[in-house]
């Protein structure tokens, strides 16, 4: 039994990270603590840098990785927000860091609890983004992340996102591969692009004029375009070595489904449970879990969703002022103009730690099966939201 944070720590140890720079933040803190334990007990030969902020944590990890080792950091919520500037340094300098992000809402209101707003707010930072559905996926996708990020066709940093508390603090059975097996999947790291080496000095991250900026951004775009094929290859190798599949998107009970719900993260297991329950009651429903958000797997989703009578997307973050949540926006865009593809309905649920129980997803399926159009529907909002809060004056 491992909770999600332990699964992350196991994965980073299996990847043989050599420098760790983390700043603790709920609900990521156990990752920082466990990595410190591993360094202290000698099971992970690494340098542990105690930094004063997340901005410094990522900066230190970038600098360390440029010397030619795997470096680690991990964060959550406002910690990720504080890293915002440095995120672009990692992606622009093409440093294949892997960073677990334990998903927690952003201020305000202050909350310690899960939603996807933190990672979604940096979705265009040039990082690969993977969203785990359970603790096995946390470990598997952490290893996948190294493999894909470090491929020379990609060379981009990767976030492995896991739902705060629902995954990070909840124990589940996780199969942990042997270190030697992981070594076969993740060969020793070398800096083959930019590096810090006194014998081979370089200016890294120098000022780039308008005459070159577009081209350098375009290099990143091409890397994103290369990533799906690299992901497929890595998933094949992963399945061969470890016997488990890592699909960017995965359909469940889609045959003859009249209503399909698209989810990310820990609600995806609930969605499959609800599908089983509703099918037992004779209702034809199915589910699709999205595990890769960047690069967005539009082609795979088109294959799974074209021809479905009704599709609904459940976002665990609010696209404030947008037409809908960020996952819905991407799915809508992916299906636009595809013959016989439905216009997906958009739902927002599970903000700031609110559970997404089967009843919430049943409501979504009910609306889809009834053919009710839904656009940016906050499906689990309370009855009198403007009644909050009453204060004594």
């Amino acid at each position, binding site marked *: 039994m491992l909770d999600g944070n332990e699964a992350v720590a196991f994965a980073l140890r299996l990847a043989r990270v050599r420098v760790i720079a983390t700043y603790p933040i709920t609900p990521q803190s156990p990752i920082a603590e466990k990595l410190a334990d591993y360094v202290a007990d000698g099971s992970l030969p690494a340098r542990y840098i105690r930094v004063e902020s997340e901005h410094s944590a990522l900066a230190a990890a970038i600098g360390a990785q440029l010397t030619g080792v795997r470096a680690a950091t991990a964060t959550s919520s406002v910690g990720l927000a504080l890293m915002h500037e440095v995120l672009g340094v990692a992606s622009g300098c*093409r440093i294949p860091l892997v960073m677990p992000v334990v998903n927690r809402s952003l201020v305000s209101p202050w909350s310690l609890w899960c939603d996807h707003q933190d990672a979604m707010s940096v979705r265009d930072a040039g990082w690969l983004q993977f969203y785990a559905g359970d603790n096995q996926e946390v470990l598997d996708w952490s290893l996948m992340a190294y493999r894909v990020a470090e491929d020379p066709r990609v060379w981009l940093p990767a976030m492995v996102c896991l739902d705060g508390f629902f995954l990070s603090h909840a124990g589940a059975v996780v199969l942990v591969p042997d270190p030697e097996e992981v070594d076969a999947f993740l060969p020793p790291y070398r800096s083959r*692009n*930019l590096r810090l080496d006194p014998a081979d000095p*370089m*200016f*890294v991250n*120098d*000022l780039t004029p308008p005459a070159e900026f577009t081209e*350098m951004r375009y*290099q990143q775009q091409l890397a994103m375009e290369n990533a799906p094929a690299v992901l497929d290859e890595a998933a094949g190798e992963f399945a061969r070595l470890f016997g488990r599949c890592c699909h960017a998107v995965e359909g469940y009970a889609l045959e003859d489904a009249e209503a399909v719900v698209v989810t990310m993260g820990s609600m995806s297991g609930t969605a499959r449970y609800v599908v089983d329950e509703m099918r037992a009651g004779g209702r034809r429903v199915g589910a699709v879990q999205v595990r890769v958000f960047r690069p967005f797997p539009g082609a795979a989703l088109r294959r799974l969703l074209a021809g479905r009578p009704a599709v609904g997307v459940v976002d665990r973050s609010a696209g404030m002022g947008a037409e809908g949540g960020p996952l819905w926006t991407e799915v809508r865009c992916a299906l636009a103009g595809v013959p016989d593809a439905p216009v997906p309905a958009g739902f927002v649920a599970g903000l700031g730690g609110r559970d997404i129980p089967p009843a919430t997803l049943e409501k979504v399926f009910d609306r889809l099966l009834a053919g009710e159009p839904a656009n940016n529907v906050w499906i689990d909002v309370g009855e009198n939201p403007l009644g909050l809060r009453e204060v004594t004056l």
Partner: protein
Amino acid sequence: MRRLLGPVADVFEATRTGAWRIERPQAGSRCNWCGTCAVYCPPGVIRTDKKARSFVIDWDYCKGCGICARVCPRNNLTMVPEGGAEVG
């Protein structure tokens, strides 16, 4: 030669900030090479040498901020518009 991805250089030449200049300091005949301008120059691109009686600006990196002209004790520097002509 190697081709690398991302913002990188092994020679510091990618950022010739002199290209930003819209005015440049032009010296008159009253310079006594005291070096006050060089002390105040933010990027440190002015060299003066009393013995050699020389006053040199590195035009690759002078942004034309005009501080040298303001601090010159002899009021010997004038900011003149860049006209695209070669500078000495």
